[in-house]
């Protein structure tokens, strides 16, 4: 495994700047979304109710998750969509870059003229991709954790929504907001105890499951890139898998007609389990397994094929 750390650290260094940008970008989106909680927590419940089943499905609210509670709010505004989207995009970018990214330019070929094996390069690059994805997930999750108290997300829903209502007395839609402030309080017994304030464990569960699904997609992107050496193909197919999976899953929830196909969608697994709210389940291991299969398949095919002509 000669050269592993040299390749690993060089690849990390080459991506340090973009990793910082990704971290800051995702952290900003996370914190900015959380900042809407005090003003929206009361109103959102009513607004979503009127959106009907389609809207609830789009936001992953099929299990009676209360959107007015702190956890429910984080779920619909971040963890059921934007947050895993961003991590999945990063995962795909890293998975593609690992092998196919610099193969098209000839830079990979030059590295392989040195006394290192293809196995070492594949392992070091994949390990580094996992590290970067982990660091960005952890830091963005941490940024949410430390800013929770600023937006009252660490407090139970009843006090939070009251505060939200009183804070929004100057808002033009106070009249519509007031009746809904009672709604979360009355529906809480039916939901999964989500009216409690958000804890560090909740953030960990949500962030870890998002990291997991992004890692699974990174594994697919790696496999495609390593097997073909074609950046465009790997990027296209892996992205389509993430985006198409989302569309398939949400459409299937609305119409019920494509349900048998949704098993290939990473979103079925992710949204149905809603680990931010329900806690980690055993099947959080599935995307890790998927990533491992993707890595092994990509690696074996990479060993056997010709490099692309730069």
């Amino acid at each position, binding site marked *: 495994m*000669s050269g592993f750390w040299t390749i690993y650290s060089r690849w990390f260094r080459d991506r340090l700047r973009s990793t910082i940008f990704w971290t800051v970008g995702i952290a900003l989106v996370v914190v900015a979304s959380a900042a809407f909680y005090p003003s929206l927590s009361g109103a959102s419940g009513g607004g979503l109710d009127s959106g009907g089943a389609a809207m609830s499905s789009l936001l992953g609210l099929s299990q009676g998750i209360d959107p007015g509670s702190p956890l429910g709010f984080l779920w619909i505004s971040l963890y059921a969509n934007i947050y895993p989207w961003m991590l999945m995009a990063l995962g795909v970018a890293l998975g593609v870059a690992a092998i196919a990214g610099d193969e098209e330019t000839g830079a990979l070929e030059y590295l392989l003229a040195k*006394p290192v094996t293809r196995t070492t390069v594949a392992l070091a690059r994949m390990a580094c991709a996992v590290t970067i994805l982990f660091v960005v997930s952890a830091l963005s999750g941490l940024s949410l954790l430390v800013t929770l108290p600023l937006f009252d997300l660490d407090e139970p829903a009843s006090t939070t929504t009251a505060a939200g209502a009183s804070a929004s007395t100057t808002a033009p839609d106070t009249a519509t907001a007031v009746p809904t402030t009672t709604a979360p309080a009355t529906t809480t017994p039916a939901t999964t105890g989500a009216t409690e304030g958000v804890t560090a464990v909740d953030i960990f569960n949500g962030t870890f499951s998002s990291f997991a699904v992004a890692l699974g997609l990174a594994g697919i992107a790696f496999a495609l890139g390593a097997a073909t050496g074609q950046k465009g193909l790997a990027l296209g197919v892996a992205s389509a898998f993430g985006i198409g999976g989302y569309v398939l899953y949400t459409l299937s929830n609305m119409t019920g007609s494509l349900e048998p196909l949704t098993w290939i969608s990473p979103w079925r697994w992710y949204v149905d389990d809603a680990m931010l709210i329900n806690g980690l389940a055993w099947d959080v291991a599935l995307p890790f397994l998927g990533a491992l299969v993707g890595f092994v398949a990509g690696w074996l095919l990479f060993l056997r094929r010709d490099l692309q002509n730069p």
Partner: protein
Amino acid sequence: MDVVIQTEGLTKRWGALTAVDHLDLQIAPGECYAFLGRNGAGKSTTARMLLDFIRPTEGTMRVLGGTGSDPAVRARIGYLPGDLNLPRAMTGADAIAYFGGLEQRRRAIDPEPLIERFGLQPHRPFRELSTGNRRKVGLVLAFMANPELLILDEPTSGLDPLLQEAFRDLLAERKAAGATIWLTSHVMAEVERVADRVGLVRDGKLARELTMAELRHQATGQIRLSFPAPVDPHELRTVAHVTRAEAEARDVVVAVDGPVTDLLERAAELGVTGIETEQRDLDDIFLEMYEAGGTST
């Protein structure tokens, strides 16, 4: 080890395209072998097979007693690709540290004299470098570990004449120190000074192989004879050692393979007024052979 590079029936096909076609090569230790051919003749494909970037469709090859797939073999090879590409933000110094760090003999690496020799600016990022400057980075990287075998793909393309000269000096030094060199080029004159043997490759086939001595022999021996009135070149074709005689206005251009005594005697009889020896351009010979190579083999 009798041979450093040996290929037998080496063939690479992509669908209907045969890039390299039953190539048999034998390169001895310490030899400088120039692989000459036009663009797309299969030179780079051969280099890429030697280094295990791509696998042959047919045939076998041995490099330094093993194969290019073995990192221990690649540790003894210095490679210059036809078009070096590195991460855009990587500087020459970064590249030297990074690729040097991957070498098995990293403690023996001394890039400084090479940096000085080629006038490399080591702290500029790769994206800002011109073709010639990228070439310099590639040359420093290829030579810095003092490899036993150098595989150089179009090494002088993009270099100015002074740097080409510096490169040839370096190559001669490494050769004197016992290194084996396999290089590709499409310009015969470029390899004239450094190569011991030349292989002409055409459409993936080895059209002709000859030593530099044989090649130089063909380059000399052209004599231009001027006469006061036109002379039938046939008068000279029959003279001993004359291989070719063509009329050009009142001159006759004669190629000789051997002593010129008989030719001069006959020319004097015909009233020659001027004698000029002409060095034939190696590239002309190359092109001539190249064109002939397609049919004669």
